[in-house]
């Protein structure tokens, strides 16, 4: 069952129903109509709801994100509000002081929005294109791997390891990101591989 849709429709319908009922029942004509028109529509009824999971601790509370614009329709979508998901068995709609302020993370002023590079010895960032950054990184990786890859140990056993480059993975990325990361890192022979679980 798609609860996203049903909830949203329910809210819309409830708003319309309440206005209609009071108008009909009391029959104050123009005064009531004017008043009804002045009532601000339920703000969230015009937003798109998306289910997500709080990215902080591993209680993994369910959240509902409200956005202006619908990503699924190919529109630009700006998250305007985030609240607890009342259907979620663990948090049942509640959030802690961190989860309740999630919107501030999404819109944080210190989010980075462009690739940047800091050259050796420099004291400043310099904006670069993705292609410039990625090509340079691939070149650095290839050169380091070629120079330091160990094919066999001193006994002649194939060991195929590369220990002069390492990779620290996060622990708030998705499992799908994690698996793809695993494939890329391991196929290169990297052993200096770790994640936040270590600390």
């Amino acid at each position, binding site marked *: 069952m798609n609860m996203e849709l049903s909830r949203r429709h329910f809210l819309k319908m409830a708003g319309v129903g309440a206005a209609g009922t009071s108008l009909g029942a009391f029959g104050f004509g123009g005064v009531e109509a004017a008043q009804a028109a002045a009532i601000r529509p339920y703000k969230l009824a015009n937003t798109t709801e998306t289910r997500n999971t709080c*990215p902080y601790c591993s209680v993994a509370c369910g959240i509902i*994100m409200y956005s202006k614009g619908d990503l699924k329709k190919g529109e630009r979508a700006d998250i305007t509000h985030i609240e607890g998901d009342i259907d979620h068995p663990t948090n049942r709609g509640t959030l802690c002081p961190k989860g309740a302020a999630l919107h501030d993370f999404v819109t944080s002023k210190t989010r980075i929005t462009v690739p940047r590079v800091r050259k050796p010895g420099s004291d400043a960032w310099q904006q670069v294109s993705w292609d410039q950054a*990625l090509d340079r990184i691939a070149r650095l990786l290839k050169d380091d791997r070629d120079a330091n890859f160990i094919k066999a140990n001193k006994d002649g056993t194939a060991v195929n390891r590369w220990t002069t480059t390492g990779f620290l993975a996060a622990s708030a990325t998705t499992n799908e990101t994690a698996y793809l990361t695993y494939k890329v890192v391991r196929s290169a022979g990297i052993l*200096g591989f770790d994640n936040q679980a270590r600390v």
Partner: protein
Amino acid sequence: MTQPWTDIKNTDLAIVMGGNAAEAHPCGFKWLVEAKAHRGAKLIVVDPRYTRTAAVADYYAPIRQGTDIAFLLGVMRYCIANDKIQWEYAKNYTNISYLVKDGFAYKDGLFTGYDEMKRDYDRSTWDYQIGPDGFVVSDMTLQHPRTVWQLLKDHVEQYTPELVERICGTPKDKFLHVCEMIATTSAPDRAMTSMYALGWTQHSKGAQNIRTMAMLQLLLGNIGVAGGGMNALRGHSNIQGLTDLGLMSNLIPGYLAIPTEKEKTYGDYVATRQFKPLRQDQTSYWRNYDKFFVSFMKSMWGDKATKDNDWAYDYLPKLDVPAYDILRMFELMREGKVNGYFCQGFNPILSIPDRAKTTDSLSKLKFLVTMDPLDTETSNFWKNFGIYNDVDSSKIQTEVFQLPTTCFAEEEGSLANSGRWLQWHWAGGSAPGESRHDTWIMAQIFLRLKKLYATEGGAYPDPILDLTWNYADPEEPTPEELAKEVNGSALADQFDAKDPTKLLTAKGKLVVNFSQLKNDGSTACGCWIYSGQWNENGNNMARRDNADPGNMGTFLNWTFAWPVNRRVLYNAASCDMQGRPWDPSRKLIEWNGSKWAGFDVPDIAPDAKPGTVQPFILNQEGTARVFSRGMLRDGPFPIHYEPFESPVKNVINPAIRGNPVARIFQADVASFGDSDEFPYAATSYRLTEHFHYWTKHNRVNAVLQPEFFVEISHQLADEKGVANGSWVRVWSKRGEVKAKAYVTKRIQPLICDGKTVHVVGIPLHWGFMGAAAKGWGPNSLTPVVGDANSDTPEFKAFLVNIEPTSAPAIA
């Protein structure tokens, strides 16, 4: 966690030790509040600070940080002495009746086989006696002096309430009160849950802290039952998933091992992983190891992994040390042996110990690549921020890349929570600026590297060139494609083993779960424990039916839990030897005469007879290990050791510093302080308003807790002439911080072995980036010491000094 969060409502008693759930996991902690309100459950908190969890506890006992093992061995001694054991459970479901080899012994804080030069043990005597039938010898009367039971009784005997008080600083009467409360749960129909977090893991004996409680829980019969279990309240939202998927030096997804260079061939590797049952009729599920391994190799390298080439065994790197974990990598960096490093959403400049060393190490890199939605301290480590990051940029030759990634709100996929639920989420917002998904970035790096190897050749390009990459858009694999790859699929038609005419899974289809995986190369699976997450029934992680028919908090149709949607691990132990629930009012599963059924997925073969097949099916024994054989480096039983930096000597053996097999690097030894110079016992902790070094970027959280502080007692404040809210300098052998003093009653001095010990609390949420006031983290002060088994650094117990100071200049 062995349980889901929602199971905590079923408990009779919760013990929070090594954690502070009310503060750090508030929405999960509510289930304990539920248990207190509706079941009359009690809560015990044992902690150096009177925490927010303690504030709602039924009983609070103080303890000096780093002494939990002594405390819990003391509780075990009490339970043994007072016959507070769940006997049917302990005798049948654990190894207490097994006989241990004659050579094994304990003396003065060490077991047989210690080599001081190597800082390691020869563990060959730490094992069972094996009979002529190939099975473990046991004595169900428990009278034989070599039974685990008798050895355990001897081992815990020295941990008297008096010794516990000397070591832990816990007054004897408080300790005994806790013992009495815990001992009540030895009744078959009472359950205790252990809720812990980094307060237990971040020690040089973190794994043994947890094991000690697990042993106690086994003796009390509290593992596998509703409301019981060992519950690691994990930190980040997907710290469980990253571990499950093996993003660690020595792991392959699903807790398989990266080979060592001693395992020259696949034959060598798999020979030590046969996992023959050590008791008659037992399951020993790891016997399927080769199926999971071969399926993983097929997932990675497809047709290039064949029986003839040992499933491309040479494509895997081989280890020459136990692990290239983060502490080892930063040590190698400092030595100039690492050139390149990636930080994908990880901020080591604030999260690994000894910040000065960390900065020094990063400065020796040729290049550093950071991938993060936020402007982290690590990506700016080369930049001068006055006293908060006092570096000379011109002297740092590291080329640093900052790659902007999307955040949770802008991406789709699954996260594994602490209770092993794999929950799918959807993107709702557009990515800001040029930020991109991590999957796109990883694909771009891979494809570019692959192209360089394809055109230029180079060092052993085969594993890169042959990596499976069958994505509709190779430039950006989708979460759906990746989730299916992890689930696994049939590479040839799969027939029922019992009826070869019956087609189970046709070639090209997704496997139902890991029971269909093969060791002959006819299946592929990225991570066997996740298999079943997205099969031909669809995306099981996206399921949203929140019905709970048994009212047991299992929610079987809500998302997907690994393994095979099981919610409570070892749940077959929730029943007696006849398969009847210990507590019929809290039934998870039961034996109905022909099979196991109930409100959870049975953690045993559905037709495995109770009383014959024992519930710990992953173990070769079929039983749980009170004696852990040679599986942990620091002992088959836990021993009390002091932290590396301790205010008191080890009263059991004053010659032993720290855990004698904990991992330390020679170059760090000079940076360990002692209590003459650094008399105060410091610990790190979290606040409910902040999440690590992340929420300080958020305006609301920065307003709620704007500023770094350290917490001290009134007594220490008076001694040092420090007023509440005034500035102090706190320093260790490795560095210093300045903070406002928060003088509280939440911390009280402890008396340990006749000496007054003052505790200094240091929260960990500040740095030099973001919206909050600039400050420092505890890692400016903490030592580089790794746990003997996990290499987790000792953040929770170290030494500092403190003095009044003036406010730092505004940066």
